[in-house]
């Protein structure tokens, strides 16, 4: 288990994830923090980006290992990281950016 910091990009609302440097659209490229101090520090950094109007409403999500890859633990976050389950042609999944371990029925 670990944590990832996510937010929406201010200018277009796109879901983004905090990476080593800046924010990325692809969940697979997100930085993963140990729960606790590291995640808190990352969130503090994200709040600075919020204050400087790059992103909106950053928050941490819990991720876990599935089939050798990290994936969001909660269904809500899995959908947010991939796109609507009813329209695979929309959202990040349409650009090959969904969490690698998320197998869709």
């Amino acid at each position, binding site marked *: 288990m670990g944590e990832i910091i996510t937010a929406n990009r201010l200018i277009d609302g796109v879901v983004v994830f905090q990476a080593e440097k800046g924010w990325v659209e692809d969940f697979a490229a997100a930085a993963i923090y140990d729960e606790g101090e590291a995640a808190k520090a990352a969130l503090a950094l994200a709040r600075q980006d919020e204050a400087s*109007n790059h992103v909106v*409403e950053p928050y941490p999500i819990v991720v876990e290992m599935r089939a050798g890859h990290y994936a969001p633990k909660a269904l*809500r976050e899995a959908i947010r990281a991939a796109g609507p389950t009813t*329209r695979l042609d*929309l959202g990040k999944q349409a650009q090959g950016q969904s969490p690698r371990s998320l197998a869709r029925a």
Partner: protein
Amino acid sequence: MYRYDEFDAGFVAQRVSQFRDQVERRLRGDLTEEQFRPHRLMNGLYLQLHAYMLRIAVPYGTLSSNQMRKLAEIARKYDRGYGHFTTRQNLQFNWPALKDVPDILAELASVEMHAIQTSGNCIRNVTADHFAGATADEIVDPRPYAEIIRQWSSQHPEFSFLPRKFKIAVNAAPKDRAAIRAHDIGLQAVRNENGEFGFTVFVGGGLGRTPMIGHKIRDFLPEADLLAYIAAILRVYNLEGRRDNKFKARIKILVHEKGEAAMREAVEAEFAAGERVGLELPAAEIARIRAYFALPALEAKKPVSDRCERRRGKDARFSSFMLCNVAPHKAVGYGVVTISLKPVGGVPGDATADQMDAVADLAEDYSADELRVSHEQNLVLPHVALDDLPAVYDRLASVGLATPNAGLVSDIIACPGLDYCALATARSIPIAQRISERFGDGARAKEIGPLKIKISGCINACGHHHIGHIGILGLERAGEETYQITLGGSGDETASIGQITGPGFSSENVVDAVETIVSTYKALRRDDSEDFLAAYRRVGMAPFKEALYERSAGSDI
């Protein structure tokens, strides 16, 4: 249709330019999100699960061809090529970029549309019977009253910061197609013994986490007093409604806690004491607004169309379409056509830009340029000559919109649920898709008869599950989606809140549970003419409960 006058056009244009300035200031960093949020919400712009979401008002569900084409154009140019028609007769775009929204609003203003008051604690889009102005059974077109309320309530200084959002619905036929008793204020147009128009007034209905059926507080309100009386209700609510707890802030809670009699007394006292100058509706003004909604000039027709009947005789699917999707029109030889946005396996309420264009063309060619959006997430061609039905049907079929299932088991209302919504606790669209795939739109659905299934993905109940004959509420339990089922709800003139069957069902089992309910109904109905709701009201919950939890392997207990 109502047309903007100079004032309306100026007002909307001013709001567009205000919002453009607000967006620029937000993007520059002059406004924080906290400062900006109320401005974007007042313009219908939410931040949802994947992106921003723009909710566009379709006042009382009435659209022109031109407006529909503009929505299609916006879908292509600024969104992802489709739009979602909602249970509030509105349209939502799920993917707009904040930087583009001022341009989208300017495009909307060019066809007399906007997104004002589609969010926030104000009087929201006033909804109405989607067959209004066309249906054979109405005593008057309710839309002029809805338009008057819309004008009066737009940016109303006293009622723009209510304890909570406020929804008003107007209906004018004995059949309530606007679910008025599930609204904060429900208005039923009636005629008194002198033949004068007025309203029966219901207050305190609503769904959400505390579902309530509205209380009748006035049998007959003269139409001239419409605004003064609504203002009196809102004043009582504004003063006495709870602001300390968001979940108890709707007027339904006030009415429930205060009691129907005390609420009536308070409203009547406020109404009697209130300053009515400027609020009394002059007959001339009602007539002026009514003129915008005049029935279009329709060529005289025979009551039965030979062309239509010939097609009916040889095409079973067309015949089903006639039976389910065509309602009686007030003009002889015409019909009111429901365009189902519920293809089997489809997403309830979604329409592609190409479909919107096709529907706009049909409205232009066959329906006096008019369209309606229903709270059941369908579209309506209100004025179609029976002679034209075969052609209309064929053109609808060519764009995947001729599903003959209006009012049947697969005509399901579903909120966007967890696939789009930041508030949702479970998905609702996939459940709707699987139910419609199970029952289809053919012989099986027809055999089951009228049945309203409504699905919400959280307790806020945007999918109206409490008033579904079968209601499904998606919840999350220990990280898994689970679905609670209610039976016997109704949003019509016999409004009732559905009763919970018992423990919920997993996503895997919920469709089987619906099938168990449907099979139980079919086994116990007196005959084909006893529909699901009537049968449920006759026999009650017991046989369904027994089938679900004692006999069926589908239950999760």
